[in-house]
């Protein structure tokens, strides 16, 4: 009876063909480059949140009791890499080719839901190879800008801290918003260090689970609440003012060593706009002092600075994008400036005086800019 043996090789050949079509990749030369992901039933700990773009290796250990999955996700939730069926007590590794940019590493204990996520950043080692002199100049100029902003912030913050320590409520309130402008302009760089932002710019609801607001809440917004909400400056607030200065000094020292690339500049500009959309337009950032528009202005100026420096590079690759960005930046800035209380100064209408319709207009202008701005990173590394 003929069993058609030729069909067997045919099946094997089909499998082999699919495989070779789909593509193999070389594993990373293990060890030091790998990022450890420790998954449990309720956590997803990542050994590093910043790593160079290129070959990424995740060494995953499931210490929990349920089956888990680990994903590397793009900001829009597309999957960059994934591994399913990571049984309890097992370890496995995931290898992926990662471009520079922001990602999330997500563990899904029980294989359901959106997963427990950790934000991570792949820094532009890839972009470095393609860097042009124009891009290098942009990075150098931006580094100078960030340093200058940090240095200028220190005396303003010092004045604010001194007013708090002197118990001078009125001066402290007046000095509060200006002390934050340099920070707000360059926030993405500070955020890239990971540990400073939560100390100086966290809001009460931004504390991590298990942190006690009475003990662990520090920084500007803690003082903002004392000044506007509680209406008193006690010993703790005075100590917190010193603490703020210590943390800001650390920030200024670290800024000089920040890793800055054309990509991180472009992504930083976008994330400043996202900040505006998420926290300022909603009035969440400065919920007690209502100085949101001052932060708004700072974020916008910082984003504009990054963009202006990158423009010579981006306009060569995508002139239509830069033309559009010019228009939208100007439009948003003009709209925002209608809320200035004094021309040229940094006084802005208190945000609780801004009506719902006006907030909507601001929000629309922010979104109109954020959309083309998200394409800037692609235009500078093309």
């Amino acid at each position, binding site marked *: 009876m003929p069993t058609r043996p030729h069909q067997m090789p045919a099946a094997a050949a089909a499998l082999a063909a699919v495989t070779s079509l789909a593509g193999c990749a070389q594993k990373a030369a293990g060890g030091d480059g790998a990022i450890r992901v420790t998954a449990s039933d309720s956590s997803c700990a990542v050994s590093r949140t910043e790593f160079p773009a290129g070959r990424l290796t995740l060494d995953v250990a499931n210490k929990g009791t349920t089956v888990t999955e680990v994903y590397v996700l793009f900001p829009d939730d597309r999957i960059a890499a994934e591994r399913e069926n990571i049984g309890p007590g097992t370890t496995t590794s995931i290898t992926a080719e990662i471009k520079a940019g922001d990602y999330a590493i997500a563990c899904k204990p029980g294989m*359901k839901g959106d997963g427990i996520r950790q934000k991570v950043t792949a820094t532009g080692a890839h972009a470095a190879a393609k860097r042009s002199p124009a891009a290098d100049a942009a990075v150098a100029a931006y580094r100078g800008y960030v340093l200058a902003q940090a240095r200028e912030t220190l005396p303003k913050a010092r004045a604010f801290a001194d007013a708090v320590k002197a118990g001078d409520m009125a001066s402290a309130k007046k000095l509060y918003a200006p002390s934050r402008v340099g920070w707000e302009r360059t926030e993405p760089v500070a955020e890239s260090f990971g540990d400073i932002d939560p100390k100086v710019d966290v809001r009460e609801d931004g504390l991590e689970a298990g942190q006690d607001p009475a003990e662990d809440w520090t920084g500007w917004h803690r003082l903002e609440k004392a000044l506007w909400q509680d209406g008193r400056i006690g010993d703790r607030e005075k100590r917190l003012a010193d603490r703020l200065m210590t943390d800001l000094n650390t920030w200024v020292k670290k800024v000089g060593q920040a890793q800055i690339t054309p990509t991180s500049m472009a992504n930083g500009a976008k994330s400043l706009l996202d900040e505006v959309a998420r926290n300022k337009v909603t009035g969440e950032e400065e919920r007690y002092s209502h100085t949101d528009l001052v932060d708004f202005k700072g974020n916008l100026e910082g984003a504009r600075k990054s963009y202006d420096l990158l423009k010579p590079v981006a306009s060569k690759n995508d002139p239509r994008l830069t033309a559009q960005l010019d228009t939208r930046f100007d439009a948003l800035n003009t709209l925002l400036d209608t809320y200035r209380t004094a021309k040229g100064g940094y006084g802005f209408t208190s945000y609780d005086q801004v009506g719902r319709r006006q907030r909507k207009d601001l929000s629309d202008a922010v979104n109109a800019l954020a959309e083309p701005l998200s394409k800037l990173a692609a235009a500078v590394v093309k």
Partner: protein
Amino acid sequence: MFGNFLIGLREGLEASLVVCILVAYLVKTGNRRRLAPVWAGVGLAVALSLAFGALLQFGSSTLTFQAKEALGGTLSVLSVALVTWMVFWMRRTARHLKGELQGRLDAALAVGAGALVVTSFFAVGREGLETSLFVWTAVQATDDGIRPLAGALLGLAASAVLGLLFYKGALRIDLAKFFRWTGAMLVVVAAGVLAYGIHDLQEADFLPGLRRLAFDISATVPPDSWYGTLLKGVFNFQPDPTVLQMTVWAVYVVPVMGLFLAPQRTPRTPASRKETETARADRATGAPS
């Protein structure tokens, strides 16, 4: 250990069922001599999967995520085509069986035997790569000693036992019933495989709409529960399918099930129609044919 057991059970169940239905079919139609190529197909798939998985786990190269998903998705779609073919092939040959046209049955089996091997190869090979990666991972696990591996292997063994039980039960019921039920079940299984393949392709971003869920009942049917595992293992049931998955599932299952359940009156020539109708009429009246 239980978690690893469930993974093994889930990954093994579908392949075990498809192979057991194939084997039961051959045994029931008195074609035991054709079992060897089926087992060869299964064996080849297991060996290839284990070897390929070991290469990826211990070797210096690895598949990119997209490649893995594309491979899984493509194999799923091919599997669906083969299982669908098998269902209708079984149905066609069953007719010859009833008509006692042994010559025709033999001819059909001769054509089908080679394809049966391919079907069993794909039924096992489809999930094989992922399963073998999982098994090798359990082999490598050091923290928990032997327990993950034991759990995984016990799960796979349990899926084989369930398949065997299904097979024993299938041998007992009458042939016509066996065709109807296993055929209908295979259509639903194939639809599940298709939906699963679509999800793989969506994850790899070859198809859009990964985040557009049709519904999400993963709170009611947790994927890591034993019943979620059984549903997933047999029907590829997913508690949070995407809209595209649901659509493709329905677009497949409705017409195919309809075709399968429709009375058989699609002979190719008027002559054979006449023959069939005569045979049917003969049976109805009890006259000898």
